[in-house]
């Protein structure tokens, strides 16, 4: 997709989102849509590090929670508006990403992944013991009743998350196309060879971890106002780690569209499952789909479609001769 058509689609998505808030009054779709969009951001952010660079991060909850708790602190201390919460959440989470980037100096592969898991546990323990943000008891936040221009605050949150999703996907799209993306791919394929071919691996990894952290922080920052009650077990939920990893895997982890497809499909399926089969079967489904995909379609849906397209292309060519 060229820059112009990508921009057009992005713009169309945002305009469509805004238009929806003018006609649709049913709150449920905003709440459910928000969650799906939040997963678009998380999956895309994860994929910049995991899919492009090949570093598997189990610490998504840590970044998400850091964004959320930054917002909590700002609400508690300054009653800061959402825009400031977003910026601050992005910065703090980005700094954690930067620190994680330096960790890649010494830790490769699975060791890195385990370290991110440990990071999440340590951070969670900190927030459990920090009374200012409610500690283990959690904290109730009173959401503003309305937002200027939007009337309903939840519609506003929905549009904000839509904007963040477009931002995240555009970032991934740009990285993928740029020299940074090619360098990250080289690192994923073989880090030592990449370094020896002139790729500044450390700097690029720092870019990847920081951008990934920033985007995850952005996903987390509006969460306190969405849910209005924040406590450690819910923001450090392992589900964020599982989903942000499963979605790119199912969609396809080598292109920007993969995580989007995965997040929309899996996220929507989960939303629907929540209000239908309403049981453990929901989780079982995620597990089965995940296993089926990694075994049968390791390149995800994008790879699957490409494979089918290539094959039908071959067939027409052959029949044409």
């Amino acid at each position, binding site marked *: 997709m060229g820059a112009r058509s990508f921009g057009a689609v992005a713009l169309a998505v945002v305009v469509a989102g805004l238009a929806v808030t003018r006609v649709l009054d*049913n*709150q*449920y779709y*905003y*709440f*459910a849509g928000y*969650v799906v969009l939040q997963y678009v951001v998380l999956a895309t952010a994860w994929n910049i590090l995991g899919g492009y660079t090949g570093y598997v991060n189990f610490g998504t909850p840590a970044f998400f929670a850091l964004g959320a708790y930054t917002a909590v602190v700002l609400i508690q201390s300054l009653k800061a508006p959402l825009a400031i919460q977003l910026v601050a959440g992005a910065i703090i989470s980005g700094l954690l990403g930067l620190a994680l980037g330096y960790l890649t100096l010494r830790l490769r592969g699975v060791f890195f992944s385990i370290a991110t898991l440990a990071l999440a546990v340590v951070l969670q*323990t900190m927030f*459990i*013991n920090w009374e200012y943000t409610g*500690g*283990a*008891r*959690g904290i*109730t936040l*009173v*959401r503003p*009743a309305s937002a200027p221009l939007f009337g309903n605050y*939840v519609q506003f949150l929905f549009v904000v998350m839509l904007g963040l999703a477009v931002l995240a996907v555009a970032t991934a799209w740009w990285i993928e196309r740029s020299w940074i993306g090619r360098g990250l791919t080289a690192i994923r394929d073989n880090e030592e060879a990449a370094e020896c071919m002139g790729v500044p691996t450390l700097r690029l990894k720092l870019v990847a971890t920081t951008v990934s952290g920033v985007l995850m922080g952005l996903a987390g920052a509006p*969460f306190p106002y*969405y*849910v*209005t*009650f924040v*406590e450690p*077990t*819910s923001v450090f*939920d392992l*589900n964020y780690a599982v989903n942000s990893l499963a979605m790119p895997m199912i969609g396809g982890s080598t292109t920007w569209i993969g995580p989007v497809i995965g997040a929309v*499909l899996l996220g929507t*399926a989960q*939303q*629907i*499952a*929540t*209000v*239908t*089969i*309403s*049981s*453990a079967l*929901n*989780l079982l*489904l995620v597990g089965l*789909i995940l296993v*089926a*995909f990694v075994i*049968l*379609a390791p390149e995800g*849906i994008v790879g*699957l479609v490409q*494979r*089918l397209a290539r*094959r039908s292309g071959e067939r027409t060519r052959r029949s044409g001769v």
Partner: protein
Amino acid sequence: MRRNRSRTRAWAVVSLLIGALFASSAWPGAASAADPIKIGFGMALTGGLAANGKAALIAMQLWEADVNKKGGLLGRPVQLVYYDDQTKGATVPGIYTKLLDVDKVHFVVSGYGTNLIAPAMPIVMERKLVFPALFGLANNEKHNYSGYFQIMPAGPRPAIDWTGTYLEVAARQTPKPQTLALVGADAEYPHNALAGIRENAKRLGFKVVYDSTYPPNTVDFTPIVRVIKAQNPDVVFVASYPPDSAGMVLAAHEVGLQPKMFGGGMVGLQFAALLTKLGPKLNGIVNYDFWVPEPTLKFSGIEDFLKRYQAQAEKAGVDPLGHYLPPWAYAYLQVLGQAIEGTKSLDQQKVADYVRTQEHDTIVGKVKFGANGEWATSRVLQVQFQGIETTDIAQFHKAGKRVVVWPEQYKSGKLIYPYSSAMK
């Protein structure tokens, strides 16, 4: 050949995915009956609180059946519409807006637990709905919302009144115990309980000699119990969830912790699973409870309810006793139902006013709410485990094993004090 196989495989994945989506979306939310009054809620049917959530659901379905057998409310049948909140607060806003905007339920009630009540509050408040709630601690403290009603009988100042009763019991012993050790899990309820008991300790003049929390996945409690023992406190207060309650009791026996009073806020000692495993090791422990089969608490309808609940519990794999949460899950719907009948109306404001001003007769006794939607006066019981000799479940169906020692009104026996003389 190879190509063929991988094509088949590719199609298998695609159809699996489509099938999964189809299966999940084609399922109707709920079958519609002839113009029923719909009551919606999210409930923890999976995740950390599912054991209780499932038990509550059975009780609520019993209420639904009972009401419909008697001809419904206002001549209309009632219908429960519910979704699994997975014990995740993040699912709650979506569930309640779905109930209200898509399913068009007439009333909503809360799911089980503080963390799952809280995310529903802003939605309920925005729309000015009556909101009976099931076992949340101080959910209304910040909002002070007039439509909120908490069926758990903690009292007007939930965290303080709840834990206060334990220390009240202790303070009445002679000689009055002086020192107090506090310990609890790093989670929502225990932290609230500990905050409450610290205030009570100040008020009743106890000296806190140990005050600490432990992470929820603690495996071994003996180091903690040893440190407590080394402080030699007169009273030990534990605020814990089921796995750690068991761990604490076992560790206390292993280490030989024998304060003058032990217990207080342990969740799990109300359930058959732990009662039948710990058996005689429970003797002497004084712990909070809300209902036990003592003669002083035989409200009308409760025994019949429990019999029917117990018949279903086995099959559902939930607590076979059902003394803890199920009666209250039944009762908070009773309150709502009585208010609808009493006002002959589905108007939220009228129903809320009725709930707030009237006294309600339920299977857990007479319920009267105060201004902030909590019980007007606390009815937290302190019970002492006495005379347990086996791990047999049948004994817990009968009176005399969990003796009510507080409050005076429901007292069914004498506290054996100190703890050590009740241990045998």
